[in-house]
């Protein structure tokens, strides 16, 4: 067997430059690089990569097309299973999914499936190649409402339109896209990519009603009256706080507030844009998932001199994407592992001046399969920081739920659905973070599509 070539590396913005801007860190493959990487794929008879992709993209054939320079075919093939390959190629935790299951993983050089997928989608965008959408013409089309414009809602709306529905999407913010717009920073997921998808959706005839909060300025009951089927893609956007002493001090943010200010409201462009953000010299981010990485790297780009990730386990157990962790390390983010905040301390003027932490040791595995962190008594000490960003995960959006009491949820507010993604209210379906409590973009996209199909079947009486 010929010796396996190593992965074609992805060119990236140099560290010294990128920590001062919000532009994409990876440049992505060019045609030659993509072809070279695609040629490494050994075209397994039983492609394990595909079974590990949550939406079972036909990865093997996609790669084959790229290797043959048939980029258009590669793109259209991914589109069959993945509504937004340009996004998932960039944000999927590939090492746990497709790439983690690639047969070549044993060699330490699995195929860069995500980068290839992103390449094909970027190529299509740059060359004006779009999936052809044929909306069946019906004399009296059925009406569907989609609540929330995150990946779940977007994927659902796109497919409902293809089934011939008149689709109206409701979004509480003044910008559509959900976490893709307000949460994930531009340096990871450039906003022109998201906006391109939004334009395509509108072109296909989906009406997007911004500034419409279902349950607040438009009633859930009104939707139920007007629409034949409803999809709930309201996400899990409510921030969680640790609930420790000192959290009321100024200088404490939820990661959501910090990222909404920075991304959606463009606080990096303040004062040209109106929304301010205060970033101290020393920022501490509590948590170590994707959200924490995003907040930390955003703080750095907003001018913080020193940014620490404060994590109660070891980074080996962090749920963050491997690429983001690598990038964060390169950019100089400090990782304080095995410490847990017990209280935030402040100045006389009510501003954060530090966080008191206790050292942790790892015990037996807990329900998440990771070792349980246990505090080591008597090891309390203070980490000096002047800004605290809490990235502890989020909870389902309470506003909508409180106005839809008839909808069955679990104790945490996660909407309960059956195997067809239908909620306890007939004709009302749900997907994405609203039914998982927080997962991934690709799962949200997949569920959005699955729900669209189920809604169609339901309406057709199948």
């Amino acid at each position: 067997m010929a010796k396996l070539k190593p992965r074609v590396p992805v060119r990236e913005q140099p560290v010294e430059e990128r920590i001062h801007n919000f532009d994409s860190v990876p440049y992505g493959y060019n045609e030659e690089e993509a072809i070279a990487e695609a040629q490494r794929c050994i075209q397994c008879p039983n492609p394990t990569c595909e079974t590990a992709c949550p939406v079972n993209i036909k990865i093997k054939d996609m790669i084959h097309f790229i290797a043959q320079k048939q980029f258009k075919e590669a793109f259209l093939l991914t589109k069959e299973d993945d509504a937004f390959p340009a996004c998932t190629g960039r944000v999927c935790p590939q090492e746990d999914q497709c790439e983690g299951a690639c047969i070549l993983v044993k060699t330490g050089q699995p195929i860069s499936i995500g980068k290839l997928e992103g390449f094909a989608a970027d190529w299509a965008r740059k060359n004006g190649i779009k999936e052809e959408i044929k909306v069946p013409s019906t004399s009296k089309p059925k009406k569907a409402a989609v609540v929330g414009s995150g990946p779940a809602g977007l994927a659902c709306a796109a497919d409902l339109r293809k089934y011939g529905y008149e689709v109206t999407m409701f979004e509480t913010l003044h910008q559509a896209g959900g976490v893709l717009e307000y949460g994930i920073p531009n340096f990871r997921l450039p906003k022109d990519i998201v906006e391109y998808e939004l334009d395509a959706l509108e072109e296909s005839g989906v009406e997007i009603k911004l500034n419409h909060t279902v349950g607040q300025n438009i009633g859930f009951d009104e939707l139920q009256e007007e629409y034949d089927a409803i999809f709930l893609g309201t996400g899990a956007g409510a921030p969680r706080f640790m609930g420790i002493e000192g959290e009321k001090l100024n200088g404490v943010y939820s990661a959501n507030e910090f990222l909404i200010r920075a991304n959606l409201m463009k606080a990096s462009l303040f004062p040209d844009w109106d929304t301010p953000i205060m970033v101290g010299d020393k920022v501490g981010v509590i948590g170590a998932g994707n959200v924490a990485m995003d907040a930390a790297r955003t703080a750095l780009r907003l001018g913080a001199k020193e940014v620490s990730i404060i994590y109660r386990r070891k980074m080996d157990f962090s749920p963050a994407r491997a690429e983001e962790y690598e990038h964060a390390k390169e950019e100089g983010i400090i990782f304080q592992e095995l410490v847990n905040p017990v209280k935030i301390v402040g100045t006389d003027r009510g501003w954060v001046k530090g966080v008191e932490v206790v050292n942790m040791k790892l015990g037996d595995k807990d329900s998440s399969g990771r070792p349980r962190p246990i505090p080591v008594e008597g090891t309390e000490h203070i980490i000096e920081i002047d800004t605290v960003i809490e990235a502890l995960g989020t909870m389902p959006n309470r506003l909508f739920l409180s106005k839809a009491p008839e909808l069955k949820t679990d104790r945490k507010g996660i909407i309960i659905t059956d195997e067809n993604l239908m909620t306890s209210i007939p004709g009302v379906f749900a997907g994405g973070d609203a039914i998982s409590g927080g997962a991934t973009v690709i799962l949200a996209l997949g569920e959005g599509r699955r729900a669209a199909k189920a809604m169609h079947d339901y309406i057709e009486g199948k």
Partner: protein
Amino acid sequence: MSHKITRKMDLNSADFYVEVEAPLVAERFKAGNFTILRSNPQGERIPMSIMKAEDGKIAMFIKKLGKTSMELYKTLDTFENVIGPMGNPIDIKKYGNVVVASDLVCGHAENYAICEALSAVEGNHVISYQTYPTADEVYPDEVLADKVCDEYHLTTEDGSRGEEGHYIDLLEERLEKGEKIDVIFAGGALPNLQELGEMTKAYNVPTIVTVRQIMVDASGMCGACRVFIDGEMKLACIDGPMFDAHKVDWESALRRPNMFVEKETVATKLCKETGRC
């Protein structure tokens, strides 16, 4: 979609009146709701109380304070977004003797809206107090709450017009005399709302006040507007903005609105230099 401003008028040296086309907000507004404004595509999302809603338009009282409000006062004739109604309306029902009190721009707007809503309920005797520092600062007659309540008190702190004193002191005198007040709704300066709560607690009068906090999304997703009520974290945008004054953690509620002062000062200065406001 941009929203046309149909009327602007000075209220006093600091505050002005704005009327804007916002059919969705106007149609659904109930006393206690607020709106989120964005002045332009780069604009901040800022919360504003609504004084009244009529014919597809809403009216607001706005203080010339920072960038958005000044720009609006000086140069704008449209808003990029007028969003809402957001927040919870007050419970519009029979209370008996209701006092509605205010001493600052947002409070005055709410005063009007709440009086109008509650005096329409049979069995309520609605008493409005509006306190201004001095006669020159009293708003024009046409926007005062006297036409929408049963009993009206205009007060100035220096006594130059109406009754002399702040509404807190005047109310305390009434309570001291044993007068029965069933509920108080108040809005305006936060420190005064705290003081009002301390005063009415002694008399056991339910006191519901607007706890104004900085907001971003106003749909419960950022936590910027968190307030602590009886030790529990609540979000002013979706749980409020009105809360029981006796239960609010005032120390943090008073401090949080100052979190961005430094930056806002910069923005306002720049905006002035460039003539936008």
